[in-house]
């Protein structure tokens, strides 16, 4: 049996992180009214070498690229690789996602665009969705409060700012609590996924005398043992399900772990990046965070941090809605209202005159 699955995964996860270039990546989508998108990817590295297999989002030879460098106060050089491409519609982006061979190729990602005519305004909606990795139901909202989740979804830079800001104590405490809750949620998700894999593979095993429902009832105990036994699966299973179960299903348990390992690869191997979306017109709603920039601060983008943690138990929907005024409908409405009011005024005047 695979002992210390978590620790093994941690090692593999870390090695995966180390072996790939640490490209800090920012993806900027500028959405146009006709549904076309100008996509810009900015990558930052300590070396002037950018390997396509380490790219967080698909970038290929069809993109216009430039490389520049910055030297900071400590005389450290940082290389910036900027790639830009115009997409006629979201389907072209989705096509690139499907053929992605980069660091996040295992993620199931897609972009959506829609526009709705609402008379006074036209509502534009753009979203990028990353499908959840777990095949079982294990929502983070069942374990963490709304406020904690909002904090978790914040980009790391902002989290650090909050932790060193005026409410530092509050946010530090929240971060600590969140870590504990996150650990509990993560382990529950792993145990639930393992149970699912185990019963999918061996539900008709002749010696299996414990039902899936009974196993699900033991889930909190397994999670508890995982925490207490230093993420040692062997000890946890022996403690909760008994030595006999472990001895009888040693190989099956191992197989279920292997299947789960394969299923969770997109989560463990996910490489983080920042997504930013600029919309036409005025932004009126979003699941991200508003960021204003430019000298006049009137340019507004919406940003999200993209990390494996966010799409383990539920799909990560990065959506933004904006409105564009339909000037012609405003003019038509104004003319119509004036017309109706005038009609009524004329009518009432006539009535008064005739009665008088």
């Amino acid at each position: 049996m695979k002992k210390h699955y978590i620790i093994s995964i941690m090692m593999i996860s870390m090695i995966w992180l180390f072996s790939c270039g640490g490209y800090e990546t920012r993806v900027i989508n500028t959405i146009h009214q006709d549904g076309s998108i100008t996509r810009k990817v900015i990558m930052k590295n300590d070396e002037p070498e950018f390997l396509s297999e380490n790219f967080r989002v698909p970038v290929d030879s069809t993109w216009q690229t430039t490389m520049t460098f910055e030297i900071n106060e400590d005389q450290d050089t940082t290389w910036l690789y900027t790639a830009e491409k115009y997409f006629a519609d979201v389907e072209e982006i989705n096509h690139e996602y499907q053929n992605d061979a980069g660091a996040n190729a295992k993620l199931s990602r897609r972009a959506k665009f829609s526009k709705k005519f609402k008379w006074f305004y036209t509502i534009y909606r753009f979203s990028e969705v990353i499908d959840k990795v777990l095949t079982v139901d294990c929502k983070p909202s069942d374990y963490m409060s709304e406020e904690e989740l909002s904090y978790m979804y914040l980009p790391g830079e902002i989290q650090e700012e909050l932790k060193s800001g005026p409410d530092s104590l509050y946010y530090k405490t929240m971060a600590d609590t969140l870590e504990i809750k996150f650990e509990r949620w993560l382990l529950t998700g792993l145990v639930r996924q393992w149970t699912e894999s185990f019963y999918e593979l061996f539900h008709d095993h002749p010696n299996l005398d414990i039902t899936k429902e009974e196993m699900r009832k033991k889930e909190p105990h397994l999670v508890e043992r995982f925490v207490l036994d230093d993420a040692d699966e062997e000890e946890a299973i022996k403690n909760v399900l008994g030595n006999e179960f472990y001895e009888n299903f040693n190989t099956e348990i191992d197989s279920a772990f292997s299947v789960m390992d394969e299923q969770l690869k997109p989560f463990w191997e996910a490489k983080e990046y920042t997504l930013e979306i600029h919309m036409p017109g005025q932004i009126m709603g979003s699941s991200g965070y508003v960021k204003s920039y430019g000298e006049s601060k009137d340019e507004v983008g919406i940003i999200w941090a993209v990390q494996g943690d966010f799409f383990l138990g539920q799909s990560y929907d990065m959506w933004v809605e904006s409105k564009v005024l339909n000037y012609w409908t405003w003019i038509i409405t104004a003319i119509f209202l004036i017309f109706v009011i005038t009609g009524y005024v004329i009518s009432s005047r006539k009535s008064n005159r005739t009665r008088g």
Partner: protein
Amino acid sequence: MNKKDAYSKLVTRFKSVVPPLENKEQIIDYVMNHIESKNREPGRFIRLLDLLFGWVHVIWLRRAMAVTAICLIILFTGQQFLLMQRLTKLENQIIKSVESESVIEDGPGMKQQVLMNLMFERPASGDSITLSREEFEALLKAYILDRPDALSDPPYPLEDPSLKRFFRKNLREQTDQDDLKSKI
């Protein structure tokens, strides 16, 4: 009683009975408009007005126009109200203003932090083995070199700047703790 008296009585009786009018307003409007249009001089402006606002004399059309106007006002007010609500919510999501399109430097996610905690902060009972940063790096390097799919020229393990910072911070925090300081 002669015929004349009978006729007078009938007329008086008819006069005393007022027939009920269901569309009194409409009849008055119609008669008055008819009289007015006969009396006034026909002009281009009047004709245009009649053409434009003739609908005010048609009750169902007048009502339809009023309902449409009210609906438009309600739609406008409703949309503005919803918009205000959504914008107020959005204002709470404003995080910062920056001057340039710089790349945001992210730290490692919760996943890495939890895994690191499992590795560093929860030694098994009775186990006094702890890892220093150098030892951990050496371990990872050895692990990479030992893998069958290891790269011919493996990169330095801690080349990721965000992870470098994370390790540095994590180890610094631990070395600040007296009980761990002696171990490390």
